[in-house]
């Protein structure tokens, strides 16, 4: 069934990478969605300090390439500290050792840093999309809620959040699929995700074209599956439930 260049140990390596890609995508996409909605809401909250903070976040992380962000978090930040301190903060402490034994990642800090960079980058885009979605809500809905005496919090939970998400969800889905592809950048900062495993397999076998085409097909399938999942979420929770 499997071609002879795909030996069992290489297949195992690739599957481990695939698992990390899926987990990394799921966790960072969920966090980015929460942070993005929060930043988008802060921007329209009317509080000048909160709005300024949100603008700063959005403009910084939208205008920096995701790869630069990752390198700053993963490689540059630990170098700020002297060697002893660096070791205990970033590579050898109770939390990271627990993460290591639990997930099997040999250097969990790099994966965490890549995740943080991904969340910051994507949430900046999502904040703008959510804000545009809220902007498209008919004014009458907001007025009606106010007339009925809804508090600001109630207005947010019952009108702004569900309707804002519903109108902006197609655009959010596109961005999240882009986010899935961006997780491959984490390979550059020593995160053993799928693309990294494919590269490791190439250095062991020198079969570049085979493994890269295999990786391309897997990413295409992942993207199709993810977009199917997002369409299902949209139909299930945002259209029918509204």
């Amino acid at each position: 069934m499997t071609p002879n260049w795909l030996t069992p140990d290489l297949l195992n390596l690739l599957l481990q990478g695939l698992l990390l890609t899926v987990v990394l995508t799921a966790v960072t996409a969920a966090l980015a969605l929460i942070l993005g909605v929060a930043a988008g809401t802060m921007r329209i909250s009317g509080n000048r300090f909160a709005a300024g903070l949100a603008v700063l976040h959005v403009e910084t992380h939208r205008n920096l390439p995701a790869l630069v962000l990752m390198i700053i978090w993963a490689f540059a930040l630990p170098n700020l500290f002297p060697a002893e301190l660096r070791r205990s903060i970033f590579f050898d402490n109770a939390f990271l050792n627990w993460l290591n034994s639990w997930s099997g990642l040999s250097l969990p800090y790099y994966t965490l840093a890549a995740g943080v960079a991904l969340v910051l980058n994507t949430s900046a885009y999502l904040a703008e999309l959510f804000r545009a979605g809220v902007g498209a809500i008919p004014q009458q809905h907001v007025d009606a809620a106010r007339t009925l005496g809804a508090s600001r919090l109630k207005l947010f939970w019952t009108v702004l959040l569900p309707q804002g998400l519903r109108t902006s969800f197609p655009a959010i889905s596109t961005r999240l699929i882009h986010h899935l592809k961006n997780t491959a950048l984490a390979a550059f900062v020593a995160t053993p995700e799928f693309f990294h495993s494919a590269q490791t397999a190439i250095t062991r076998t020198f079969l570049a074209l085979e493994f890269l085409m295999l990786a391309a097909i897997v990413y295409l399938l992942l993207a199709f599956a993810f977009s199917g999942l997002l369409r299902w979420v949209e139909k299930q929770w945002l259209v029918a439930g509204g």
Partner: protein
Amino acid sequence: MNDHISFLIEKLPALLFGFSGQRPGGLFLSLILAVLAVAAGFCLAVPVSGAERSRWRPLRWCAVAYVEFFRGIPLILLLVLVHQGVGGVRFGLNWSPRTSAMVALALYSSAYQAEILRAGLAAVPQELVESARLMGSRPRQVYFLVKLRYAIRVMLPAFTGQAISLFKDTSVVVVIGVAEVMTVARMALGADVTNAPYWVTMYSFVGILYFALAFTLSRLSQRWERRSRPSDLVHSYFSY
């Protein structure tokens, strides 16, 4: 603090224009790569978007497969695929990193631009096409002078957004070692342990360079779009 600034000043010419002997490089090369890739990508996107709207099914499927493939895989993978897989020694091509980066970025950009063009072409008002036909234009004239021009103008915000996004994406070519600004930053820091304190300074500065260009470009394009709104478009066609 002072040593950080003098370190940056020492590396600044290389960051902007590349190491001497490898010019053009640095940020300048990033810009060249982005501009050339967008231009080449557009030239590819015109036939692909045409094929996507073709009446002949196999051609349409090929175009859809092209767009889905290049849009569906990560750019970092496409770069390595072009450099090691296709442009490597196996097919006797042996492309330089710079050539591979150009090819990969152009293919990547073309898929996105083809999607934008397709949406733009679908938005062309039928009466515009019909009146052009009534005036006796040939099909080719209708396509290039009416449909394509309308599509480009109506989708201009999407095109500029894509171009700015591609400029930021050129940072990824560091994986195949093109001498653009990320690679220069990496080489300037090197494996020297004494350079460790400068890592944050260096990459923050590279970030500032990207930010300055991307932010300025997006603000300029926003101002430009406000001046030429698509709602004026039909009017402008009749007031030539």
